[in-house]
């Protein structure tokens, strides 16, 4: 019995269908991430799980109970929003305790829960401040604290890191991972950032245009993508796609994919290209090549130098080549 199950969930706004037959299950304690480009329906799906939006058809089950007709507050969930969504006129403490107060919990338990969450997130000194007096990172911690206090069966995170600056984002990412380990609660997390998805998730759900493209552990998706979309979306820099005719391939293969890190450069090889640009990152060097009218990325380990404009040859292991048919489906 999973702690979250979606069965044939569809959603349309007017005539526009935004989610098509979504089926998935999250295990107890699992960290599941919905990832996809903007407009793929991932936030809508999260809002349907939360009960902020009704599914047009299909069922949502939380901890084995069908919750289709329950309001958000009765579903045993807590949600952390991208914009924090703290109540501006309430202190941190009241922000965190409002949900329990509404549910009619007694004061002693509210106090205890707030204290527990505040200790966990090191918010103790700020309990009497208002959101306006806190920094962005602190506000995000309060928003997470507000979710923890409710002791939910399911945590929902809606792009919680996208309003933070880069350094804080990495820190908060680690904090969220740590929090998940300590709480052991199921988390469903939405992001458009595949790095977040790769680093945090137990399993990733890749969505595009309202369809689930693939569900799997981060390394499964990286090593064994089902189609071109997943192959291109997971991994950074993104996978290179080339016309299959460049290599000697069976007729049904339309496109081949090569990960930037699976390629090395030398003076011999089946495919050659012109160096167009170099990026020195210290630990790696990204080399951009013009191959067959396309820009191709090669990620080399260490610090390497090539002359811009010079011709180089790609070298790669035969099993590093991903093959796709004309519809973008992987040929294994």
């Amino acid at each position, binding site marked *: 019995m999973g702690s979250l199950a979606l069965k044939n969930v569809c959603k349309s706004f007017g005539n526009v269908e935004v989610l098509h037959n979504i089926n998935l299950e999250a295990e107890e304690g699992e960290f599941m991430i919905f990832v996809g480009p903007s407009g793929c329906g991932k936030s809508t799906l999260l809002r349907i799980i939360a*009960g902020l939006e009704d599914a047009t058809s299909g069922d949502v089950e939380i901890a084995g109970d069908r919750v289709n007709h329950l309001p958000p507050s009765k579903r045993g969930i807590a949600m952390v929003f991208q914009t924090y*969504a703290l109540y501006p006129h309430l202190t941190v403490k009241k922000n965190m305790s409002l949900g329990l107060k509404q549910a009619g919990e007694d004061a002693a338990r509210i106090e205890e829960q707030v204290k527990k969450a505040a200790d966990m997130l090191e918010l103790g000194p700020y309990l009497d401040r208002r959101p306006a007096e806190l920094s962005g990172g602190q506000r995000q911690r309060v928003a997470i604290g507000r979710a923890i206090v409710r002791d939910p069966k399911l945590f929902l995170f809606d792009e919680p890191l996208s309003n933070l600056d880069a350094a804080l984002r990495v820190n908060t990412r680690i904090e969220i991972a740590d929090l998940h380990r300590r709480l052991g609660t199921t988390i469903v997390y939405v992001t458009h950032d595949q790095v977040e998805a790769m680093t945090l998730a137990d399993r990733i759900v890749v969505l595009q245009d309202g369809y689930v493209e693939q569900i799997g552990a981060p390394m499964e998706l990286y090593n064994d993508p089902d189609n071109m979309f997943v192959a291109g979306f997971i991994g950074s820099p993104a996978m290179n796609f080339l016309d299959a005719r460049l290599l000697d391939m069976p007729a049904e293969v339309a496109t081949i994919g090569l990960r930037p890190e699976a390629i090395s450069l030398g003076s011999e090889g089946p495919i050659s290209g012109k160096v167009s640009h170099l990026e020195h990152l210290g630990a790696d060097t990204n080399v951009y090549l013009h191959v067959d009218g396309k820009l191709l990325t090669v990620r080399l380990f260490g610090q390497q130098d090539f002359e811009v404009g010079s011709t180089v040859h790609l070298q790669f292991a035969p099993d590093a080549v991903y093959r796709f048919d004309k519809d973008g489906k992987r040929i294994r």
Partner: protein
Amino acid sequence: MQRVKHNPLNLALAHLALIIYTIIALFPVLIIIINSFKTRKAIFRDPLALPNSETFSLIGYETVLKQGDYFGYFQNSFIVTVGSLFFILLFGAMAAFALSEYRFKGNTLMGLYLALGIMIPIRLGTVAILQFMVATGLVNTLTALILVYTASGLPIAIFILSEFMRQVSADLKDAGRIDGLSEYRIFFQLVLPLVRPALATVAVFNMIPIWNDLWFPLILANSEETKTLTLGSQVFIGQFVTDWNAVLSGLSMAILPVMILYIIFSKQLIRGITSGAVK
């Protein structure tokens, strides 16, 4: 932190312009107040002079307070203005919330319908309104005035407020829903405080025309008990003789309450603007 240096000449010119504008704006008000403290002869002999020991007189104020029920008029005006503002803001905000928050069939059409009143002056319907008030027995009640002003103030209120409410973070309302707040509490406790500057703007926009209106009090509520201040002051303006002392004193006293209300609302206005800027 280094402050931006202003050219002193520019600064002086800007202040000069502002001072001139202030003088022009305040001049008529000042003349009214000065002359309200002078004898009738002094008003005509030298309207711009300040009252001195010879010309100082409270006769205007005495007349105003003795003749007619000035405090009664005053109270009527106050009840009508505050009552109308209350209902305009309440119903306007509620309609605006529904229009901006909920998806339902005909939402846009409803919004247009509600905003239509901006373009149609309510005075065109005076006759029908009077017939309606007579039929419902509301003639010569303050309720009639409050109803009319509420109706005429709603379109612009809904128009302005729904724009502002669209800007209130959707996440905040959703957070309230997840915490189990009812839609009413979300409206009253989360959304209304955040659109307070807009509420103040709508209040100021509506307040002064209502306070100053002569038309509807004259038509719908001209009995002695329901006269508003503006209508009450008209007794001193005759076809042949006008008691200027009384008129000027009455006007001076009528300014006060509007000014107090205005100060209250404008403080909200400024607080709203600055809190938005700092965030």
